C-alpha cells in the first residue's frame, strides 16, 4: 500500500499501575484504520480493547501508561504525526478536530443541565468559534445530519426530554462537529435496544460514507462488527487473536477464540443446544393471562396505559418469550405475573392461583414460592453487604424452611447447580464478575423450587460470551428441573435460541403471538419484521445460508 492508513498502531503496549501490582492491559497490538473504512475491535470485557481506543485519543486514566509501540495519525496532506508521548496541549488541538469520540453511555455522557444545542456547540467553542449565529447554524446542520427531526426545537431541549437513541445521535453530532478524520466509537450501542442499535449503526455507516472519515468501532458483539467492519481485529487478554478483512475472518476464522465468539453471538449461530418442548395435548397451562390491563396514574392528565389486552398461556415446562422495545410493556406484564404490582384489570392465573386476587401478606408471600423473578442488572439485585451464602439462604429463612445446616447445604447445592465453585459462598457480590453474579441471582430464584421463573432481560446486561453461557445454563436447568420460563427480552436473537412460544408487544398491546418458528420465520406483522431486521448480523446470516455471497478475499 502506497498510501499510509489514517491511523496506524504498531506494537502498542499499555500497563496499569495499581497499588499491589502492574497490570498489562494491552501487550503489543497492531492495527490500522483506513480513510473511509471501519475497523472493528472485538473482544470481551477485560480484553484491552477500550484501553487501546483510549490511548488513541490520549485519554488513558491516570494510572495507565503506554510502555511501548507507536500510534501514528496521518493527515489529509500526508503529514504523519506520532501520538505517543504527545504533550497535553497538543492533544487538545487534536481531539475534536481530527479525532472524534462517540462515548458508550448516552444516558450519562450528556450534561443534564445544558441544552442539546449547548452540548453540541461545545467542541466548536473550545476550538475557537465565536460567532454565535454561525455556531447556531452549524449546530442545526449537525442535528439535521444525524437524523433528528426539527433541529431548532431539539437544540433547545434538555437531555431528559430525548430517548436513548436520540441522545446517542446528539453525541454523534457533537463528535462530528469539526469534521474529524477519525471517529472512535466505544461500544456506541451497547446501552440501546436492538432496533435503535441498528439505526444508530446505520447512521455511523452513512456518515462515514459521506464524510470519508475512518471509524474505529469497539464492541463486544461480533455480530455488530460483522455487518459493518471492513477490517476486523479480535482481541483477548491484551493480545490480538486474529485480524484481517471482516468477511474473510467471519467466513473462515483461524483462531479458536474467534470461533467461540462466533458461536456465542446469538444472532449468528444457534449456540444453545436445546430440545424444543411441546405441551402435551390436553394439559392445563401453568400460566393463563387474560385481558391484562395496567394503568399508571399521571397527575393532571389521563392515566398512562402501560399494558392493554394481553392474553397468553404458558404450558408447563416450556419457555414463553415477551418481546418488544423499551416501553412496550413487557416488564410491566412480567412484574404483574410475579405479583409485584396488581394490574388494573384482567386475570392472571399461575398454577391455579388467581394472582390478582392475592391481597398481600401471608397469601402473597406463599405465592412467592411458585414464581420467582430474575432481574436484569446483576449489579443491583444482590445486597452488597451480604455474603453469597447469606443471599442464597435468605429465601429459605423467609419461608422458614429447614434448619441452619440444611439451609447452608441447600445454598451450596444450588451454587453447584449454577456451576459456581463452593468457595464463592463466603465472598461478597463485588468480588464476582457480572456473569457470576447473574448465576447467583438465578440460584437464589431456584432455591425456593418455583414452578415459574420470570427472566426480566436477565442476559441483556452481559457480554455475548457470558450471555451464551447463561443461556446454556438456563436451558440445562429447564431440562433438569422441569422449569417453566417467562423470558422478557428485546433481543429476538436470544428469543430464537431458548423460547418455544412468543408474544410480540408494541406500546403495551400484543401484535403477534404463537410458536417461535412460526412468528420468527414467517412474521406477518411489520413490527415483528422490523425487530427481526434489526438483529445485528441479520444480513451476515443470510450470507451464511448462501455461501457464494461471501467475497472470496
Amino acid at each position, binding site marked *: 500500500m502506497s498510501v499510509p492508513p489514517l491511523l496506524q498502531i504498531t506494537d502498542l503496549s499499555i500497563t*496499569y499501575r495499581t497499588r499491589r501490582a502492574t497490570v498489562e492491559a494491552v501487550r503489543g497490538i497492531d492495527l490500522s484504520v483506513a480513510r473511509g473504512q471501519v475497523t472493528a475491535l472485538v473482544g470481551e470485557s*477485560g480484553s*484491552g480493547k*477500550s484501553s487501546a481506543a483510549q490511548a488513541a485519543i490520549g485519554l488513558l486514566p491516570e494510572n495507565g501508561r503506554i510502555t511501548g509501540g507507536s500510534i501514528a495519525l496521518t493527515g489529509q496532506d500526508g503529514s504523519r504525526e506520532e501520538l505517543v508521548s504527545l504533550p497535553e496541549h497538543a492533544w487538545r488541538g487534536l481531539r475534536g478536530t481530527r479525532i472524534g469520540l462517540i462515548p*458508550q453511555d448516552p444516558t450519562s455522557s450528556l450534561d443534564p443541565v445544558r441544552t442539546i444545542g449547548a452540548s453540541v456547540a461545545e467542541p466548536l467553542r473550545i476550538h475557537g468559534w465565536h460567532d454565535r449565529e454561525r455556531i447556531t447554524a452549524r449546530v442545526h446542520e449537525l442535528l439535521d445530519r444525524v437524523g433528528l427531526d426539527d433541529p431548532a426545537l431539539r437544540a433547545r431541549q434538555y437531555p431528559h426530554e430525548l430517548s436513548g437513541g436520540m441522545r446517542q445521535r446528539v453525541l454523534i453530532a457533537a463528535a462530528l462537529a469539526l469534521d474529524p478524520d477519525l471517529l472512535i466509537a466505544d461500544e456506541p450501542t451497547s446501552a440501546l435496544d436492538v432496533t435503535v442499535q441498528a439505526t444508530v449503526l446505520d447512521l455511523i455507516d452513512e456518515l462515514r460514507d459521506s464524510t470519508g472519515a475512518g471509524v474505529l468501532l469497539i464492541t463486544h458483539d461480533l455480530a455488530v462488527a460483522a455487518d459493518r467492519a471492513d477490517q476486523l481485529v479480535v482481541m483477548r487478554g491484551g493480545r490480538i487473536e486474529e485480524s484481517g478483512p471482516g468477511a474473510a475472518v467471519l467466513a473462515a476464522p483461524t483462531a479458536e477464540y474467534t470461533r467461540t465468539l462466533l458461536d456465542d453471538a446469538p444472532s449468528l449461530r444457534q449456540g444453545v443446544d436445546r430440545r424444543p418442548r411441546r405441551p402435551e395435548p390436553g394439559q392445563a397451562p401453568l400460566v393463563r393471562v387474560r385481558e391484562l390491563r395496567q394503568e399508571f396514574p399521571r397527575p393532571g392528565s389521563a392515566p398512562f396505559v402501560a399494558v392493554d389486552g394481553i392474553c397468553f398461556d404458558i404450558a408447563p415446562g416450556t419457555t414463553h418469550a415477551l418481546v418488544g422495545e423499551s416501553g412496550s410493556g413487557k416488564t410491566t406484564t412480567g412484574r404483574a405475573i410475579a405479583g409485584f404490582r396488581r394490574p388494573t384489570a384482567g386475570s392472571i392465573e399461575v398454577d391455579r392461583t388467581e394472582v390478582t386476587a392475592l391481597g398481600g401478606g401471608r397469601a402473597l408471600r406463599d405465592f412467592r414460592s411458585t414464581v420467582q423473578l430474575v432481574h436484569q442488572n446483576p449489579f443491583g439485585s444482590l445486597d452488597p453487604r451480604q455474603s453469597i451464602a447469606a443471599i442464597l439462604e435468605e429465601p429459605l429463612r*423467609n419461608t422458614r424452611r429447614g434448619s441452619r445446616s440444611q439451609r447452608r447445604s441447600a445454598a451450596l447445592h444450588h451454587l453447584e447447580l449454577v456451576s459456581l465453585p463452593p468457595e464463592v459462598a463466603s465472598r461478597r457480590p463485588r468480588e464476582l464478575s457480572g456473569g457470576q453474579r447473574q448465576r447467583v441471582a438465578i440460584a437464589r430464584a431456584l432455591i*425456593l423450587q418455583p414452578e415459574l421463573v420470570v427472566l426480566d432481560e436477565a442476559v441483556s446486561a452481559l457480554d455475548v460470551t457470558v450471555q451464551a453461557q447463561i443461556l446454556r445454563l438456563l436451558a440445562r436447568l429447564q431440562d433438569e428441573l422441569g422449569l417453566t420460563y417467562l423470558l422478557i427480552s428485546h433481543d429476538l436473537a436470544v428469543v430464537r435460541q431458548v423460547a418455544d412460544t412468543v408474544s410480540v408487544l408494541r406500546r403495551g398491546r400484543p401484535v403477534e403471538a404463537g410458536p417461535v418458528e412460526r412468528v420468527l420465520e414467517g412474521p406477518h406483522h411489520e413490527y415483528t419484521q422490523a425487530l427481526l431486521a434489526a438483529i445485528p448480523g441479520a444480513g451476515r446470516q443470510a450470507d451464511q445460508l448462501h455461501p457464494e455471497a461471501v467475497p472470496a478475499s
Partner: protein
Amino acid sequence: MSILSHTAGARPSTGQRAERVRRPALRPTVALSALVLLLALAWALAPGLFTGYSPTASSTEALQSPSAAHWFGTDATGRDVFARVVHGASHSITAALIAVAVGLVVGTTIGAIAGTVGGAVEETLMRGVDVLLAIPGLLLSLSVVILLGFGTTNAAIAVGITSIATFARLSRSRVIAVRQSEYVEAAFGSGGTLPSILWRHILPNSAAPVTALAALQLGSAILQISTLGFLGYGAPPPTPEWGLLIAEGRDYVATAWWLTLLPGLVVAAVVLSTNRLSTALGKGEQA
C-alpha cells in the same frame, strides 16, 4: 469507568485492591485526628493519670501564666487550668455522646419509619421535622434547657433535639434510595416480610452516611454544649465544663490570655478532629 471495570475484569483480585488504594485511615491527618480524640477520651476516662491537681480546689497562687508546673497556668482562684480541662473532658464528651445518641436514635427512627411506611405517616413526620428545622438551633436548645432545667445532661438533650431533624432527613433519603433497589425487591420476592427486610437490608445499607453524620455531630455537639455552658445554661460552677471554663476566663482576657485561649484551642482541636474523621468515614464508604 470502563477502564476500571476493564482492569478489574482482567485481574479481578488486583482490580479489587486498586479500588482501595487510597485508604483514608492511612492518611497522616486522619491518624492525628484519631490520636487527638483518643487523648480526649483518655482524659475523660482516667483524668487522674494526666494531672495530679484537683480541678476544683485551689492549689497555688491565682493567675499564674503557663509554666512547667502548671501547663495551662492557673485561674483567678488559683486552680490549675490544665487539670480543669482534663477533668472537663468527661463532662463535655459524655454530654456530646448523649446529644448525638438522642439525635441518632430519635432522628433515625423517625427517618426510617417515614422512608419505609410512606404516605400520610411520612408526610406528618417529615412536616414535624421541617418545623424543628425552621427554629434556629441555639434558640431551640435554649428553650429546651429552660423547660428541662439547667445542667449538663439537660443541655446535652437540648443539643440532641436540635440534631434530630438532620438525622431524620438523611436517614429517610437513604432508606428511600435503598428501598427502591432491586435487592430489596428481590428480598420481598423471596417471601420476606417488611420488618425482616428493614433489619437485614435497608438499615445496614443506609447506615454508612448516618454514621459519618454522627461523627460530625459529635464535634458540633461539643461546640454547642460549650456554647450553652458559656452562656450559663449548662453545668453550674465550679464544674470544670469546657464552655464554662472559657466563660470564667473571659473576665481576664486582657491580663490572663491563657484562661480562654488554651481551653479554646483544646475544644477547637477536638471538634476539628471529629470533622476530619467524619469526612474520612464518608469517603471510605464511597470508595
